[in-house]
């Protein structure tokens, strides 16, 4: 159990990184090529399919990083590393919950005008790369944390 949790953390954080990269480079570029209303229709059809892989990776990544931060409360260096990991994952989670999720739901309900869509999509993509950067930093620190744990346990 001691070793499984750091493994789950590293795997799911790196997996989340891959999913975010695929979303940004795959879907993101495609969406930008579409007319605003056409984009909203495509998005409404595709969005339900994004949820499963995203939740499957982001949720265990977030939970495991918090769990490891709490678990190593007596190991100052390890705790510090997992604090960075946890902060990156929380930042990604907050950005997703505060911006992406409500805007996504708006896209599904087809409730925006063409002008609004263009602005919202640009911000969507910008914040997407911000959350990607946060998860990337978390992934690098997760690898460091994984090695620190292996040296102690």
């Amino acid at each position, binding site marked *: 159990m001691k070793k499984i949790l750091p493994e789950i953390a590293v795997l799911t954080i790196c997996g989340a990184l*891959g999913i975010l990269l695929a979303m940004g480079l795959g879907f993101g570029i495609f969406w930008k090529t579409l007319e605003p209303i056409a984009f909203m229709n495509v998005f409404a059809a595709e969005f339900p399919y994004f949820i499963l892989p995203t939740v499957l*990776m982001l949720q265990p990544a977030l939970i495991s990083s918090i769990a490891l931060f709490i678990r190593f409360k007596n190991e100052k260096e390890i705790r510090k590393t997992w604090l960075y990991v946890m902060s990156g994952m929380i930042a990604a989670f907050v950005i997703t919950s505060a911006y992406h999720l409500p805007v996504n739901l708006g896209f599904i309900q087809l409730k925006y005008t063409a002008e609004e869509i263009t602005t919202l999509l640009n911000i969507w993509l910008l914040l997407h790369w911000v959350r990607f950067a946060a998860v990337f930093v978390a992934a690098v620190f997760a690898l460091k944390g994984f090695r620190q744990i292996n040296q102690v346990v």
Partner: protein
Amino acid sequence: MKNTISIIAILSIGAFAGNMINIGLSHAMYWQSLEPLDFMKFFKIDFPLLLQPTAATLLPAF
């Protein structure tokens, strides 16, 4: 240097796995919901977009 290569290898293998999960659970499930001909039309658009993230994760992993 060794450390950096190890980090790049692990990150990109993990990210590649995430990319594959994304293709399997997101794209493929959407494709299956389409009619065969619609799927083929959509795949023509979708395929080039899948290449970039796949190459960006698979190449450094390899």
